[in-house]
């Protein structure tokens, strides 16, 4: 029972030609899957309504976004985090965002209705959208609304964020919620946007010890991610026993990503995706909803998400990319695309401080487990 969710209307969420958060990334992915002849017809979501959004967003904020999106000038728009380099104002942004939120919410509904248990939403992942302001390319928080739907249905929900940036918006919205566990692994806020996601951010009140953060050293390699899945995610989910897992599968921890510093390869991503599926099979009846997210290397991101698609659908992983697909997109991107699906190893020059980085990351994971263990009895 695997399902794909996508609507071409997602492309309305286009922040401009020079903006890194480009709809082209999903287009390249879908084109690649079609070329391989493995693209399943996706379920097309409807946009959520403005009223639906009030469950997680402030009314004035929604109003401001909707107005700005239809070209009406809004006073003090900057206080809503809009009209700057990261979140420029553009026509149709609200509609595009509501379609993408609709996709993630549809994913939640398919899980609740037992229509599917492994779902890939080819959009969404807007984890930096806050209750009353936009940030980090995100306007409406699709993940929070989908999680909220499941909580209202009576479910316990776990959220796993492997995007290289901390999932601050989602964590904040459920910070004192006892039905939601959020887990984010990211490059440390000491170095990277949004600057939060420390191990002492453990949640509040009855949500205590349900918000987990692993801030990683810059230039962290894949082994720390696998360690994290084993030492943090596995025990956390086996204790919390969620009804479903929502995964923000940002691909920007890849070594070639222009916005961040971590050093994952496609081989690491393959292992990470397989491990996540294995953990959900063991702890939440295999119910998992993946969304996309960050990922700003135009040649790596579609390959990483193609791996996710292949793994979710239990398909064999091809060695090479289709020649015609490469030719087409090389012309559009004006960039060479590697012949193989996986990265060519060694993918990057070895970093001399690697031992130190590994040690620091292990220390951080141990400290986090030490501080939540007393709550998990």
């Amino acid at each position: 029972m695997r399902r794909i969710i996508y609507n071409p209307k997602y492309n309305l969420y286009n922040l401009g030609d020079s903006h890194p958060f480009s709809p082209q990334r999903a287009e390249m992915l879908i084109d690649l899957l079609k070329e391989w002849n493995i693209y399943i017809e996706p379920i097309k979501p409807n946009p959520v309504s403005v009223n639906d959004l009030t469950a997680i967003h402030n009314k004035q904020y929604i109003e401001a976004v909707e107005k700005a999106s239809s070209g009406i000038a809004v006073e003090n728009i900057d206080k809503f985090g809009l009209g700057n380099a990261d979140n420029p104002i553009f026509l149709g942004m609200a509609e595009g965002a509501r379609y993408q939120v609709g996709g993630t919410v549809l994913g939640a509904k398919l899980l609740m209705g037992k229509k599917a248990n492994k779902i890939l939403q080819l959009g969404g992942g807007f984890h930096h959208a806050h209750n009353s302001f936009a940030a980090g390319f995100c306007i409406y928080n699709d993940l929070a609304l989908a999680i909220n739907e499941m909580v209202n249905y009576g479910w316990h929900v776990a959220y796993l964020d492997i995007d290289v940036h901390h999932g601050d918006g989602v964590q904040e919205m459920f910070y004192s919620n006892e039905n939601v566990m959020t887990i984010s692994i990211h490059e440390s806020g000491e170095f990277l946007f949004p600057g939060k996601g420390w191990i002492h951010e453990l949640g509040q009140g009855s949500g205590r010890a349900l918000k987990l953060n692993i801030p990683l050293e810059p230039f962290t390699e894949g082994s720390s991610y696998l360690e994290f899945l084993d030492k943090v995610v596995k025990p956390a989910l086996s204790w919390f026993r969620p009804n479903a897992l929502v995964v923000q599968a940002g691909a920007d921890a890849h070594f070639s990503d222009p916005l961040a510093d971590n050093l994952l390869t496609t081989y690491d991503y393959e292992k990470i995706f397989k491990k996540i599926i294995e953990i959900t099979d063991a702890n939440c009846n295999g119910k998992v909803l993946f969304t996309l997210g960050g990922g700003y290397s135009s040649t790596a991101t579609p390959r990483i998400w193609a791996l996710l698609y292949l793994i979710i659908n239990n398909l064999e992983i091809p060695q090479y990319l289709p020649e015609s697909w490469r030719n087409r997109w090389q012309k559009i991107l004006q960039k060479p695309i590697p012949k193989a699906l996986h990265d060519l190893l060694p993918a990057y020059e070895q970093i001399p401080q690697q031992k130190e980085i590994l040690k620091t990351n292990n220390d951080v994971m141990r400290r986090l487990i030490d501080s939540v263990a007393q709550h998990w009895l």
Partner: protein
Amino acid sequence: MLIREVMHLNPISTSPETSIRDTYNLMNKKNVRHLPIIKNGILVGIISDRDVRLATSKFAKISLDPQTQVAEIMSHPVETTRLSEPIEVATQTMRQYKIGCLPVLDDSKLVGIVTVADLLDAMLLMTGVHYPSGRLDVRLKDRSGELAKLTKIIAERNVNIHSILSYPETDGRLRVVLRVATMEIRPLAKAICNADFEILWPKQISCEE
């Protein structure tokens, strides 16, 4: 930042005639470590939980009776501060005398109290992350116009600066840490690097590209 912005208003105080026992109990009950001592509306001394513990310890040369008046062991005269004193001056006073708190006087009346914890909170406010933002760490030549040149580059890219923190380095240059509201820190750093600034974070920026 001024003392009035970080201090606690209406501090709990006691009188010189109060016994050490009652002083101790008052500290415990109110969960404080320092008590200003007031007589006829005038600050006459101050007592810390450490003073109480040392005076009554079994290990002390003369362990005082808990009934002793607190006036016997209080510190005086008292180092104080005022509402409009900059926190860095108050911090220097506390470091110099190795003390953990300063009563705040206004027109000779006790109006507030400021402790080391309040100064740590102030530091958090100045160094902390209060909005989603990325970090830029730049080394500046310590001369006029450098910071203006730097912030102009950021403004031209329509990026908001949430905070700027600076401190001097030993070689006379100025270290500046900016929290800027952007995920695209690297192109920004590149532009700054090209304008002949030394970038310490993000790493691995080569200007030329």
